[in-house]
Structure formats: C-alpha cells, structure tokens
C-alpha cells in the first residue's frame, strides 16, 4: 500500500484527513473512498493535510477536484493544508492553485471556521 491515511475529528463536524505517501493510479481510489466517507458523515469541514505526500499524479488531482465539487454541492467547507513540494508541482502545472482554499498550517485553516 503506497498511501497511509489518518482521520481525526478536531471538533464536532470538523475532520482532518492526513495523507501520507504516494497518491497515484494505484492508491488514489483509497483516498477517494475515504473522502466519500467523510462527505457522507454529516461533516461541516474537511481539511486535507498533504505535507507528507511524496508524490501525486493526475488521478490524485482528480480525487481532490471530486472532493471539492462534492463538498460544494453539500455545503461542506473543503480546505487543503501544507502542500508538499510534489503536490505544489502538480498544482502549478495544472493551474489549480486558485481553485482550492489552501492554507499553510492546520491552525490557520481552522481559525476562521
């Protein structure tokens, strides 16, 4: 398994999904399934922590775009935190930096909630 995920309920309805490892075609579906669980759990805020992602391909990007779009439909805040160099690379290439709400730290992502 090339990706490890940890979910923490920081406070009621606010979940932090920490992703570690390589998010590629073989593992992005695991992330998609975890996000789907959170999206359908009466969640108010999903924060995806990406500092320990050593690699992300376009299937990982597609997973995050799906998460964002589903969140918008359901009225859930969807935020990304601490993008690793690998994630920043593909975000720049895909010109997605302005599409997502991106925060440098978990504290800042939570502050306004």
């Amino acid at each position: 398994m090339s990706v490890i995920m940890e979910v923490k309920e920081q406070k009621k309805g606010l979940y932090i999904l920490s992703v570690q490892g390589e998010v590629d075609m073989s593992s992005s579906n695991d992330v998609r399934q975890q996000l789907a669980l959170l999206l359908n759990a009466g969640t108010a805020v999903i924060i995806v922590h990406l500092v320990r992602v050593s690699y992300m391909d376009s299937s990982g990007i597609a997973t995050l775009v799906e998460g964002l779009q589903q969140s918008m439909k359901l009225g859930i805040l969807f935020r990304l935190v601490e993008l690793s160099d690998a994630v920043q690379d593909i975000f720049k290439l895909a010109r997605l930096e302005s599409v997502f709400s991106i925060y440098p730290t978990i504290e800042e992502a939570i502050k306004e909630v």
Partner: protein
Amino acid sequence: MSDQDEKSSDQVVITILSKTEFLKIVRRVIETYFQSQQFQADVIRQVVLAVDEACSNVIKYAYKMDGSKEIRVSLSGVSEGIKISIRDYGDKPDMDTVKPRDLNKVRPGGLGIHLIQSVMDEVTYDLSPDLGTCLMLFKRYPETGGTAP
C-alpha cells in the same frame, strides 16, 4: 534527435507488467537516471510525473486496465538531453482525442496529456509499429549543471 543517437552506452531499459502498482518502479528508475545526469530536483519531479502519466495512459487506454501486458520504458542520453521512449503493444490512441484539455474548465480527469506536454521539450507519438505505440519524449539538459554523456 537523429537516428545516430539511437544507440547509447548509457541506455537503461525497464519492462514492467501493466499493473498500476508497478508504476512506482518506473518512477524510481526515472528519478535515479535523471539524478545521475545532474538535473535539478524540481525538474526531476516533473519528468517523473510526465513519464508516470504516460505509463498510466497506456494502462488505461492502450490496455484498458489489463495488468498482464508489457510496457517497456527506455532512457538514453544523447548530445542535447535525455530521450525516453514508452512502448506498448495495445490499442493505438485516437490522435483526435490526444489533446490537452482546457484548464479553465475545472473537472476531474483529462490532465495527463497537458502535464506531459508542459514538462517535456518534445513529445512524439510513433504509430508505425504493427502493434501498439511508441511515445517518444525528450528533455534537454539544463543550460548549466547538466552534462552530456
């Protein structure tokens, strides 16, 4: 790139089965090869991404997720840069659909071609084999730091 460049003393060839879990093996090989050629870390990450996307496309479209087929990736240094070829033996791509998508339309999927073309200096599809396709990619040595073999 000329035909004379085809044979190189530092050529690396790797053949994998078309299983998604083997993509990381290709990534490690590309990363190691480009590190040996003194490319900068950010450029190496981008080239790794481009080759990974190309192999993913082979698995998805040429082999339709059949994990029993072969993908052959070869790398060789030529005078101006690194040549990478990705050979499959599956369905040939419909070149009318091999186009980068409009990035202003935010939607999941369809990014692979854009990423490959953004990163590599040359991208050529050789559809001439009777069976399958050879995607040829080329990355120039950096103006400073890179060394021709």
